[in-house]
């Protein structure tokens, strides 16, 4: 149940991100839309790794190693989400750097001003 709610939230975030990327003409808003869609994917990944009633895959006093495999969520999507967050940050940094350069070239952040590579 809870993972379905989380999954729906993540997918909605992706939709909002795609909507933002398609409708807005300001480059910064497009970057924000992209980040929103990326965050949505992370939430979807974590939701898909959820096991009913599971807890975090960390062995400690309240979670013995013997019973761990029946009581924890899937660790692989969480590990992949860490990777994805780092890569998402990297992509966002590059996009913002390009946004700065584009602003310097045309003194505007509107994507309509950049028609050279439009076909």
């Amino acid at each position, binding site marked *: *149940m*809870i*993972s*379905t709610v989380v*999954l*729906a939230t993540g*997918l*909605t975030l*992706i*939709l909002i991100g*795609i*909507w933002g990327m*398609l*409708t807005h003409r300001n480059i910064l808003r497009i970057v924000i839309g992209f980040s929103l869609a990326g965050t949505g994917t992370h939430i979807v990944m974590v939701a898909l*790794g*959820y*096991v*009913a009633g599971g807890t*975090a*895959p*960390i*062995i*400690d006093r309240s979670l013995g*190693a013997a019973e*761990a*495999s*029946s009581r*924890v969520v*899937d*660790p*692989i999507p*969480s*590990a992949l989400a*860490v*990777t994805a*967050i*780092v*890569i998402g*940050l*990297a992509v966002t*940094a*590059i996009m*913002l*750097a*390009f946004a*700065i*350069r584009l602003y*310097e070239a045309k003194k505007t952040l509107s994507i309509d001003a950049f028609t050279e590579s439009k076909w």
Partner: protein
Amino acid sequence: MIRRLAIVLVLALFGLVFASLTVHHVERHSLPPLGKRYVELVPQELGAANVITGILLTYRAFDTLGEIAVLFMVAAAVGLVLGRRERRDLPRDAPQPPRPASEIVRTGAQILVPLIAIFAAYIIANGHLSAGGGFQGGAVVASSAVLLLLAAPSRQLDQQLLSSTESTAGVLFVLVGVAGTIFASGFLDNRLLPLGQFGSLFSAGAMPVLSVLLGVKVGCELSVIIDRFRS
């Protein structure tokens, strides 16, 4: 008009796919085989309490190495894209001194930066025991760098020092990995150091070492990226 129609169509199709995904989603009641295997093997074989760190720093450590390479590339690329600007634009607008930070920000930074640094060290050192690890701790280090730069906008970060620290950490990370092929059973195998007592700070073989190297590297890299955006 046609564009708006196309956007609505794209969104509707995506919404359809997502809705069917959500409707047909069935919550798992047991771990898939690979995840189950990891949960069993990480405490047993690697001696790490945090299964996710065990995966990130041993079983999939090669991925992590690739990720570090990506971060390094981003720092270099941001420098390349933003770096040439200064030489070309200097004559056009004279650099005006940045507005000094307010007293609240300055005092807050003085109190918070040491605390944030301690917290980052805690997160990095406990990566194999509880929630945390090199990437998360590195991000916290970078947040303290942001606070420092907000409190003293005219301060220059020592890019040279940051770059050389980061490169040293990267080289050491690879060297630990190579040592794994010689003294243990494979590249980045953490069992080249004794596993120690399960759940103590110095346990899980080379994992704390890798975690610290990763934290230093990520912290330096993110600070460099942030500093490049500022200039």
